[in-house]
């Protein structure tokens, strides 16, 4: 699966797609592969404040619990409630229908220093090499 070039990526394997001062956040294809079959997603409430680098959600597979960290600060304006009944969407479409929340960014410039798709792909290639070494 390719990594959309309009998104920015974190070292914790979240993606953020910003349009002006609003942004959509999810976890990457690499992250869903590492987790395996997602069976549970805990999302923040509408209006919750996200702080960059802090955990705001939990995604669980059969084997593991994974904290999801905010790529940028902001306030939740929409949550993907479909995930409650269909958490496996995160596996099948992590960069699309498997999004977690939409936020109003506190500071849109916060997104700029994050990795672009090419840098993220290079980053996970390194990860894969480490894992197989």
């Amino acid at each position, binding site marked *: 699966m390719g990594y959309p070039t309009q998104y920015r990526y974190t070292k914790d394997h979240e993606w953020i797609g910003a349009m002006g001062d609003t942004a959509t956040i999810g976890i990457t294809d690499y992250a869903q592969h590492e987790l395996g079959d997602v*069976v549970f997603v805990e999302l923040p409430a509408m209006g919750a404040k996200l702080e960059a680098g802090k955990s705001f959600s939990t995604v669980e597979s059969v*084997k593991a*619990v994974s904290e999801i960290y905010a790529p940028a600060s902001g306030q939740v304006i929409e949550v993907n409630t479909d995930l409650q009944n269909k958490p496996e969407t995160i596996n099948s479409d992590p960069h699309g229908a498997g999004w977690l929340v939409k936020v109003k960014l506190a500071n849109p410039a916060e997104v700029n220093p994050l990795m672009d798709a090419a840098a993220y792909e290079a980053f996970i290639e390194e990860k894969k090499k480490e894992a197989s070494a």
Partner: protein
Amino acid sequence: MPVEYPANGGLVAEHKAVRSGVGLFDVSHMGDIRIHTGKKPAGGLTALQHLTMNDASRLAIGQAQYSAMLYPQGTFVDDVIVHRLGEDDYLLVINAGTREKDITWVRQSTADFDCTVEDLGDAFTQLAIQGPRGVDVLRKLTDANLDAVKNYWFTHGTVCGLSNTLIARTGYTGEDGFEIYIPSEVATSERVWNEVIEAGKEYGILPCGLGARNTLRLESKMALYEHEINDKISVWEAGLDRYCKLEKGEFIGRAALERARAAGLKRTLVGLEMIERGIARDGYRCLGENGEVIGMVTSGSPSPTLGKNIALAYVPPSLSALGTTIYVEIRSQKCKAQVVATPFYKRSRKVSAN
């Protein structure tokens, strides 16, 4: 053994393959200890009876039993499967994580007995062929009459050209299946692994990892060391009474267990099913109605077979009745669960079992 093999669909696919067809596990990490005769006859059995809680004198040659080695306090050194290989010749299969500790314990505890102890952990690789079609897969690779091997019995036969291979109808999945013990030399064990996978293709065999091993054993309420059993938990608390034979005579831990039985239990292992959304995980706390801590989850996971979130937990006996409401603390939230009957999953016993 990896946690899962993602290329074939991963943990859930592996779990389901074992429940409905067949899966293959590389369990070469398990340890093997042989205890047999010293200078005089029957020294092996005498030492084993002292060392383990089940009654090994009841074993016929070719039979195996679930048992455990205990500390003098009646708590667990490790759980083991004891196989009676010959007249006074026994093979103990032990856990990987406790291997060094176990072998030291066995040598120490049997030092005053007339027996021979051998650590065979490096000599064997263990492969587990598990699931209702496991018998069909293994049949293609061996001359042994598998139909004559009942649950918790074993035989020796040629497997993939390796003569005198120990073939046991045992496992850690709650499903019918076999565990075979082959030389641990890499080229040999890889060849056998590949031949089993090849033979299993028509039955949809999948290589299975530690993740599926854990969910399968949890559904079947089989204990895992450092979870349901450890050096602080007694046999009675763990509910393993039926494998503990006080009437056989002296063994390490027996006196403490008799005292503990007279004193009564402070906690007991129960099965939980989550009622509210949330997955109980190992180490999460169990709470009472008012938020007071009443116990601890030892293992918890979504159950791929049942489609529910299940757990094993230690709680006070007064809260262990079926249907009792118990709460599990999940990320500071009090999530409702209920005590349910265990094992969570039990296979239909139509395949030659006893």
